[in-house]
């Protein structure tokens, strides 16, 4: 009905639309429409995908990177590394002549040295460090992944060599070092800030070694980055990178179509496909190890009873949810591990849609007439869930069938996460995106006891048996043995059902047809270092 009109309008835009920009600005600039504000400009302090997308690959570098295709670790800030003491000491040799950002408020006097690496890690390792408590003192990834207890100390051997001493052998250590959270900060900048008396600016006016440097941040509006001309891999092609913050998914899509955005986060792919968005827009699909689940606050009755949790798991119609919310672009999850993980084994689902059984289990648990509860749903899109509010409404209707009254609670995204971390919820629709290829990363940060303390375990579930099984699995070095152990862990989790896994979503990226080189790695945030805009690309 509206297609011909729209195509006409689009052709008008594609030609010489009224939104033509100044030539130089357009050629060197890129607008990425993101879904929310970052909580801070240092991913050490946060696990939110929004913060990681905004900062990690743009402002900072890590010691090593992970190449998902080759499944190996490649050098980044460290060009060589070796292990000693049977795997309990890792030595990294730093690349020479890596420059930090030079901005209005900071001029580096020296390139990257070991002291910077020591500073970046000791900050969160040592509770007595000057900067430990600055801006909150919470380092959720490092606590939840176990790095805090794994690394005993970090010391510099000389100005270009750093040693990491571990408390035990751990096969996931390198994988964790390659994640987006293990960024390298500038110790010199931290010193300058301490002298100026404004240490909190370390995470708000960030300095790193990355391809882009911070210019300004206007909340709910934009983040502006400029290219780092001294980047050790060569200055990026994009000179002006702007994150235009647009929480509404539909508006993002519209802005992409009208050309106000060059690349957008979490496109509504089915809507784009239905309306013949060609030619100016391209959609690419990437694999993404993620899982959406419905977590029960196991510290709060009646969710402390496994029977009640099992009843609720039977009560919801998961295939219908997957179809409605994801429009077929996701897989129904049968456990915590997605099918892309090497430790995955397909199993039949333990909890088919069975309202009768649900009612029966509720009765056994002592709630024949149901009860009232809240479902907390995120207000913005995530990789694992394009519309949590809608999913909550579907669940609400399903629960009403068995006599459970659910009300939906939502807040602005950062407020939402803060309240979730405080455990204010009855149940929550959340999810997890893996940071590395190790299956431990799916289970430890979401269900272990240390994660419950750090706030990433939304089920607030603390089970000593589970933790022990996890530990054994990570200490084993035989992949087959590990696979068996992870299967046992999965079975155990599904019996206890502290959370109900729902789906594993495909990940998409949508951009203008003349933009190339925007990378969306499976285990990391978006990268613009190789992005460029091509002139005169035929439609």
């Amino acid at each position, binding site marked *: 009905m*509206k297609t011909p*009109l*729209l195509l006409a*309008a689009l052709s*008008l*835009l594609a030609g010489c*639309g*009224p*939104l033509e*920009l*100044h030539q*130089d*600005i*357009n050629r060197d*600039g890129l*607008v990425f429409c993101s879904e929310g504000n970052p909580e801070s400009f240092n991913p050490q302090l946060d696990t939110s995908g929004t913060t990681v997308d905004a900062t990690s690959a743009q402002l900072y570098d890590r010691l090593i990177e992970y190449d998902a295709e080759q499944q190996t670790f490649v050098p980044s800030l460290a060009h060589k590394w070796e292990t000693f003491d049977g795997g309990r000491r890792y030595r990294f040799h730093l690349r020479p002549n890596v420059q930090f950002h030079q901005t209005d408020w900071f001029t580096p006097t020296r390139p990257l040295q070991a002291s910077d690496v020591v500073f970046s890690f000791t900050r969160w390792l040592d509770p007595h460090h000057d900067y430990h408590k600055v801006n909150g003192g919470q380092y959720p990834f490092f606590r939840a992944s176990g790095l805090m207890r794994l690394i005993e100390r970090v010391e510099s051997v000389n100005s270009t060599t750093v040693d990491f001493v571990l408390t035990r052998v751990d096969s996931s250590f390198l994988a964790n070092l390659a994640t987006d959270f293990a960024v390298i900060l500038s110790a010199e900048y931290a010193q300058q800030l301490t002298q100026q008396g404004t240490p*909190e600016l370390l995470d*708000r006016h960030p300095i790193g070694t990355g391809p882009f440097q911070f*210019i*300004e941040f*206007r*909340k*709910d*509006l*934009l983040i*502006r980055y400029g290219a780092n001309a001294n980047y050790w891999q060569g200055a990026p092609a994009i000179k*002006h990178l*702007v994150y*235009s913050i*647009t929480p509404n998914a539909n*508006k993002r899509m*519209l*802005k992409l*179509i*009208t050309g*106000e955005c060059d690349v957008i986060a979490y496109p509504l792919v089915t809507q784009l496909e239905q309306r013949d968005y060609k030619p100016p827009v391209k959609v690419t699909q990437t694999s993404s190890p993620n899982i959406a689940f419905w977590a029960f606050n196991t510290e709060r009755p009646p969710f402390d009873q496994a029977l009640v949790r099992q009843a609720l798991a039977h009560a919801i119609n998961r295939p219908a949810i997957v179809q409605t919310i994801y429009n077929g672009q996701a897989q129904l999850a049968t456990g915590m591990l997605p099918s892309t993980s090497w430790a995955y084994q397909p199993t039949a689902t333990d909890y088919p849609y069975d309202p009768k059984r649900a009612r029966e289990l509720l009765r056994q648990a002592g709630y024949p007439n149901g009860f009232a509860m809240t479902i907390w749903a995120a207000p913005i899109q995530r990789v694992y869930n394009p519309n949590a509010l809608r999913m909550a409404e579907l669940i609400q209707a399903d629960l009403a069938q068995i006599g459970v009254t659910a009300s939906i609670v939502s*807040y*602005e995204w*950062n*407020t939402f996460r803060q309240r979730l971390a405080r455990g204010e919820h009855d149940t929550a629709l959340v999810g997890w995106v893996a940071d590395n290829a190790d299956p431990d990363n799916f289970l430890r940060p979401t269900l272990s006891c240390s994660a419950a303390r750090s706030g990433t375990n939304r089920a607030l579930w603390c089970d000593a048996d589970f933790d022990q099984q996890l530990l054994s699995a990570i200490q084993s070095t035989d992949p087959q043995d590990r696979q068996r152990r992870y299967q046992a862990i999965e079975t155990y989790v599904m019996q206890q059902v502290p959370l109900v896994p729902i789906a594993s979503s495909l990940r998409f990226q949508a951009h203008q047809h003349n933009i190339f080189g925007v990378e969306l790695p499976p285990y990391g945030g978006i990268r613009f270092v190789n992005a460029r805009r091509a002139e005169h690309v035929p439609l």
Partner: protein
Amino acid sequence: MFRYSLSRILLFSITLWLLSIFTFALNYWYPGDPLTNMSGVVGEMTTAYQQESINRAMDSTIFRQYGQYIAHLVEGNWGISLSTQEPVFTAMRHHLGASLELIILGSAVAIVLGLPLGTYAALRQRQWQDKLIMTLSLSTYSIPVFWFAQLAILLFAIQLGWSPIAGQIHPLYAIETQTGSILLDIILSDVDYRGAAFINALQHLWLPTLVVALIPLTMLIRMIRSAVLDTLQLNHIKAARVRGLSDTTILFKHVLPTAIQPVLREAGLQFSVLVTNIIIVEVVFNWPGLGGWLVKSIFERDYPVLQGGLLCLAMLILVANFTIDLLHAWRYPQTRDVIDAD
């Protein structure tokens, strides 16, 4: 005039004082700790909190606390935002500039379009032009602003592509925010793409301005129409016509100056309608003004920002009403004698 101004200033001051009491009381009515609501400092055990507690006299009587609150307000210390930790006062200034831009331009559009249309309708009373204008204005007056804004975006931005969807300016244009008003900021900045940026800003500006101006426009049309109709009945107009003055002279020299008086008197009411529309339009068009800021702060439970925004908006309205009152009284001295007669 002097006595009148004095009485108005007195009234204005008393109202400001009442407003400040109201916002001070709000700190205690919001859920949570009153000191956090007032200043934005969290964490009861931290030194910053203790310091703030002393600064604001939280241990003594409520009058002392109120006094400190006023002192802080006047100094420009409006607390820090709970979500960004930036001072509320600086953020407020930028948002104020953006809102004022829309308000001033919207009012200008409403006046420039409304006065002629309303006068024309009055002159053609009961003919089809009058009926058309009145029907259109009544219908437009009844449209909910947010629905109209959505429809406007659907039509002009998506279908026709004449306007971008949201925002003040294309984000790649790095214009430093000095006043908050994008046009002023472009003029004040020293980048070399000023011309292109200015045009781009105008493209972003025209649709929100139109939507904001719409309802005050219709109100203005109706008011000026009835005012002109009333004025046309007056004796001195009839006398002028008898004397043979041309229609245009009568209209511009005699009718309009008198007819504007009741319109000016009601302008204060129009202004509050304008502000209501601004709040909604800023949310729909993602315009970085006071209204959008206020609404977001309600979602985020950011109480210092909520208070700052409320205080700023309320003061804006009071100042506008005060100015309009003075203007009205200065121009039409007969109205000045109405002072609390009983």
